[in-house]
């Protein structure tokens, strides 16, 4: 049930992102000097900011950035990390071990701090943000893919494929990948939520997508200065992050309960 509710909210968020141009009541960048810092009311359901821009429209358009960063960064990490983990397990011995020791070292470091360091090197902007979070998440997928690949590497059908002369690349993609793909996909879904939080954190620090493009993180940041007289500026984008990340975590919790009978309700 938890997973279903989570999935419904997540689908709603995706629909909001896709339909943003049609459902957004105003242009998110359009300024209206006569309606600055208007509290939530009928014509501006979530109020307006210090430039008179409609907060609801900005939150709706912010969904696009947050979900785009969440999905594409995880997709990038899934692709590189899974390949890295599987290759490390397949080649085994010293080289594979060395790759995984490096992965473990990177994994032990706080995700946000690694992200800050990488973004400081790459620079800010949407694409760079996706690459940054992708890099940060790569070790997670490598670790996830490594164990199961190691377990099935010695299976008879893999030996059989090797005996009939199948190459390493084909063994990895055709025989090993299908065994771990389900786990990788489930974890990827969960980590979309975490990626959204990291994007918001980086934007909050000023290392994400720059204003005036609306992102939930930079909206919260710019709202801090008006916290006493216009708390809605930070409150609504914050709630948007909470609801979206919560939905992905609910999917994760639901899937975990389904797969672990000891925890099942």
């Amino acid at each position, binding site marked *: 049930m938890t997973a279903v509710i989570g999935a419904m909210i997540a689908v709603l968020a995706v629909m909001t992102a896709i339909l943003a141009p049609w459902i957004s009541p105003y242009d998110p960048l359009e300024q209206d000097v006569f309606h600055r810092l208007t509290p939530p009311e009928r014509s501006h359901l979530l109020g307006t900011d210090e430039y008179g821009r409609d907060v609801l429209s900005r939150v709706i358009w912010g969904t696009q950035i947050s979900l785009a960063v969440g999905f594409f960064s995880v997709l990038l990490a899934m692709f590189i990390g899974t390949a890295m983990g599987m290759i490390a397990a397949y080649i085994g011995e010293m080289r594979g071990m060395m790759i995984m020791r*490096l992965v473990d*070292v*990177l994994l*032990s*470091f*706080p*995700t*946000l*701090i690694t992200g*800050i*360091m*990488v973004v*400081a*090197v790459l*620079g800010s902007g949407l694409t760079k943000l996706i690459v940054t979070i992708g890099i940060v998440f790569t070790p997670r997928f490598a670790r996830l893919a490594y164990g199961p690949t190691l377990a099935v590497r010695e299976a008879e059908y893999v030996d059989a494929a090797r005996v009939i002369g199948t190459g390493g690349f084909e063994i990895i993609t055709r025989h090993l990948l299908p065994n771990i793909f389900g786990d990788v996909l489930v974890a990827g879904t969960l980590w979309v*939520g975490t990626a959204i*939080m990291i994007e*918001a*954190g980086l934007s*909050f*620090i*000023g*290392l994400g997508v720059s204003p005036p493009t609306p992102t939930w993180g930079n909206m*919260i940041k710019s709202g*801090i200065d008006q*916290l*006493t007289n216009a*708390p809605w500026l*930070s*409150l609504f984008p*914050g709630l948007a*992050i*909470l609801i979206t*990340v*919560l939905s992905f*975590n*609910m999917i994760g*919790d639901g899937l975990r309960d389904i797969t672990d009978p*000891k*925890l099942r*309700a």
Partner: protein
Amino acid sequence: MGKYIIRRILISIPILLVVVTIIFFLVRAMPGGPAMAVLGDYASKEAVEALQEEMGLNIPLWKQYLRFLGNLLRGDLGKSLINGLPIAPQVIQVLPYTLQLTVSGILFGVILGIPLGIFTALKRNGFFDYLGRTFSLAGISLPSFFLGILLMLFLSVKLNLFPVMGGGDIRNLYETLRHLVLPGLTLGLMMTAYITRTARSSLLNVLGEDYVRTARAKGLAERIVIYGHALKNSLIPVVSLIGVYAIVLIGNSVLVEIVFSRPGLGKMMVGAINQRDYITLQSVMVIYASLVVLINLLTDLFYGFIDPRIRYE
């Protein structure tokens, strides 16, 4: 135990070396190099060369690396590119604020999270279990900086109970604590959510084990089964995960320091990025790396202490 401690310490050294090496090369991988980053894209060649010489960037990379390691071993973190002051004293000045914040978050989380986790596991599928699960799920989904803003809005701005920002004078205990409450609570609530979830699922796992079933089958009272048999074993994975969560907290302390304008390593790091002071950035990252390695080491040692099986692996 002595051999175990020495082994763990020896393992930590190469890990720290790898991280420090990655940091060193990342900083040098910046487009145009650190000197160009400081001076901007339109700086003259002469200005870039002069700054490169000042930063020691005009010698071969391997020599720079060895010099960097040598300086680190002597506790020399270099000089800030902005004000020319040595970085080590600045780090020493702000480090206690970050440590206070992280430690208070961990303590809050442990003191509240473990009993909450046990309680919700024992009330499985009841009202309090659902309440606890909802709280903890929301807690891990709420960005720390947003939670900090909410607490600041209600407890500082509306009710005027705590200072809105700053870290207080570190020599004045009362002032320090007053400034620590809200940032500590922000990280503490997050930590509570993590630990409640872990403690709950760990106890539920243990309650499904054969030895618990045996204890019940031989007629032991439920209280003895839980407190005498299940609880201690269920806390072992919680302890190891406290270390992992402590590292998550260190990451989030950066955002909390920004929200509350609190001095600390995070604020120093973000300031260094904004001012393009890459030597300070490099130094702060090295300190963070050392903290992470230290936390992992302490977790491993504590884990080995409470679970003898780990020591003999």
